[in-house]
């Protein structure tokens, strides 16, 4: 039978790593989405903006 402290230590460490990796991927996805939206906004605005007034 596996020692309970050994099991707890390995599980806790990987839980910490997975939670961090999950939070990182969530933040990356959120930023990527926002970046795309803003790039689209800039792209849409460009032709009219570049016209001389």
């Amino acid at each position, binding site marked *: 039978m596996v020692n309970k402290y050994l099991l707890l230590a390995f599980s806790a460490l990987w839980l910490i790593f997975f939670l961090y990796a999950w939070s990182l991927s969530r933040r990356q996805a959120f930023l990527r989405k926002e970046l795309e939206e803003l790039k689209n906004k800039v792209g849409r*605005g460009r032709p009219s903006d570049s016209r001389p007034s």
Partner: protein
Amino acid sequence: MGKILSPTVHLFVTLAWMIVAYWMIFLYAPQELTMGEVQRIFYIHAPSGWVAGTAYCIVFLGSVVYLWKRSPLADDLAHAAGEVGFIFCSGLLVTGPLWAKPVWGIWWTWDARLTLSFVLWLLFVSYLMLRSYVSSPGRAATLAAVVGIIGFVDVPIDYMAIRWWRTQHPQPVIAGGEGSGLDPRMFLTFIVCVGAFHCLFSYLLIQRLRLARARRELSAIRRALAIPPSED
């Protein structure tokens, strides 16, 4: 590094290295005679500490370069290392008591090594809190860099604590001088684990750096469009 090693390849190498490390921890390394199975925590506890030390060295170097050159890349690197280092330092502080309890009969004691490791964790926390709570990004980066530099003094003292003072924490088994050392199979397993943890650290660090780069790009676009920053 992203150009040399794609994120997918880097992740694959990390996973493969981890699998080898786990195989060595549970099937290759011999069982320690006095502590038994629980001693295998050593193979994840000590590498977590080494990575936390490496991370703080990067925080220190990034902070020095930032204050010297005002380089945003150095600041991003220090910030990323601070965040990922905090994760590994937390792992160190979680696995330590889980090893101490069955071996020493106590979860924690305020000896030099444990106290200095806890101080290192507090330094990571202070560094990250400073970055979050100071509203001006330039001021936050400067203040955090100062903490990153001053706090670095803890790293070598923490490393030397078990060599300089008599502690409850075991004396060094790596580079500990006469009378110290490990069984060759245990030593090899430990080295493979240190490598695997550093590989995981570098993967997370690069991902965190990408996030910082995307944030800077976003801020630049927002400034160009005169859009106020969102709450993220």
